[in-house]
């Protein structure tokens, strides 16, 4: 990056550190912070969407839909995350390729499963074998987002289901006394009021989601923990211009600071949101706010 970095062993420790921290490899680490934040930014709303869908389905009076919603919540909540991340992603990827294979190469006669191998025609590959590396990375990232959204969506569905039931019955009875239909009651009374009951649970989920991002490496995405391990490992002078001992402790210390800082920030934001949501609600918190202002 800097001119004088050409011969690092002649530098004093400050400049050495400056050069060391700007190697192409360290850029990989910095970019991976962006990857993790991007994943969180996309996953959180999609998981909420899955959760909302799941909760609505589970509440449905149409039996098959209700079974589907309840099944989704129970099954995904029960399966260990790591099993889900190892099995589901490969199954999803192969399922998509299998469908494309049936569609694109109907005249293919060889078996798709040959012993251990999963073989589809080249045109059915996802992404195509010819596509550049970034396409593979985007595809992997999209699979990761979908998997995270499904897993965390199930937990969010359970939280929202509980929150919908927690809306005071008097509110719903008043709504029907005003002549609102079920649909109107749901959208105008239940949904606006349920958030205050859902937020503590959703806030917890958000914290867990932040901590779960290192699972990304299972999906072949180079996240911050991968880079911390790779960069912190002992480097001998034969393979790098910047030899150093086992520095993993320092890298993981940095991750610790990052995660703690990020969760602290989240807590502050969640507290403010809670204050906003409590306003005017028929809860103990809402009552306390009213008294304080009166």
């Amino acid at each position, binding site marked *: 990056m800097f001119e004088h970095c050409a011969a690092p062993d002649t530098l004093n420790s400050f400049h050495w550190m400056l050069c060391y921290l700007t190697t*192409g490899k360290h850029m990989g680490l910095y970019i991976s912070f962006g990857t993790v934040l991007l994943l969180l930014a996309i996953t959180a709303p999609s998981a909420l969407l899955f959760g909302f869908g799941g909760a609505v389905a589970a509440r449905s009076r149409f039996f098959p839909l209700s079974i589907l919603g309840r099944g989704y919540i129970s099954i995904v909540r029960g399966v260990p995350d790591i099993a889900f991340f190892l099995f589901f992603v490969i199954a999803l990827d192969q399922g998509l390729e299998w469908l494309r294979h049936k569609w694109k190469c109907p005249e293919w006669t060889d078996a798709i499963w040959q012993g251990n*191998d999963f073989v589809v025609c*080249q045109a059915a590959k996802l992404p195509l074998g010819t596509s550049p590396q970034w396409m593979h990375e985007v595809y992997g990232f999209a699979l990761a987002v979908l998997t995270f959204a499904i897993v965390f969506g199930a937990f969010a569905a359970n939280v929202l289901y509980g929150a919908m039931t927690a809306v005071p019955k008097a509110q719903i009875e008043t709504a029907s006394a005003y002549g609102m239909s079920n649909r109107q009651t749901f959208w105008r009374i239940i949904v606006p009021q349920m958030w205050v009951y859902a937020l503590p649970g959703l806030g917890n989920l958000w914290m867990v989601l932040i901590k779960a991002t290192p699972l990304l490496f299972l999906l072949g995405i180079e996240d911050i923990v991968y880079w911390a391990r790779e960069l912190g490992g002992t480097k001998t002078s034969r393979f790098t211009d910047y030899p150093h001992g086992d520095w993993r402790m320092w890298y993981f210390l940095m991750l610790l600071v990052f995660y703690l800082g990020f969760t602290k920030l989240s807590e502050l934001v969640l507290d403010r949101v809670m204050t906003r949501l409590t306003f005017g609600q028929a809860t103990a918190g809402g009552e306390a706010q009213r008294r304080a202002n009166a």
Partner: protein
Amino acid sequence: MKKLILGTAVVALSAGFAFAGSHSVVRMGTEGAYPPYNYIDDKGEVAGFERELGDELCARAELTCEWVTNDWDSIIPNLVSGNYDTIIAGMSITDERKEKIDFTTNYTQPDPSAFLALSDSVDVATGVIATQASTIQASYIAQSGATLIEFATPEETIAAVRNGEADAVLADRAYLEPIAAEGGDLVILEQNVLIGGGVGMGIRKSDTELRDKFTAAIESMKADGTLNALIVKHGIGETF
């Protein structure tokens, strides 16, 4: 308009068939954590013996190659499910692995494995030995009288010896030598262990065409001495 759409669809489909079955881009899967075989250099790219070897093999076989890194633990499952087309990651050819995947001919001699320890008085026959999980060294220790502890990455095996969790590491000698040369307190024990049938490229069993191409390229590099030159340059071990 309809004809036009149909026409493009036909072109797109036939283009699809044109490369069905043959590889237009070969994706090379490696670990990137096992110098001098393969590691990530300062620029963040795959480097080392296998990088140079792989690039040369692809040039000889007239293939376009792309490098990807993958965790060692899941390197075989990801090959068979088609996420990349070859494994070129210092993987020794063993019968156990041959049940799942095929190998090209070997491009290194069986590399002697060695023990790395804090002192040369360690009793490796009964002590606690660290190895990387799912390696030939791990199965060798599992069958000996010593206690085996396994780690996901080679780096962690060295750290385990430094902090006293293990008495010694068993790994390829070529991997341990640069560490012993610079580690100060760590020494390589005299005793060598000969396991494995040399390192080869792992390829899906169904992909015989690709395997034969790479085997032919390796044979040609063996014949004109360029492979030996690479082995000497990177300090991999015995030449052919």
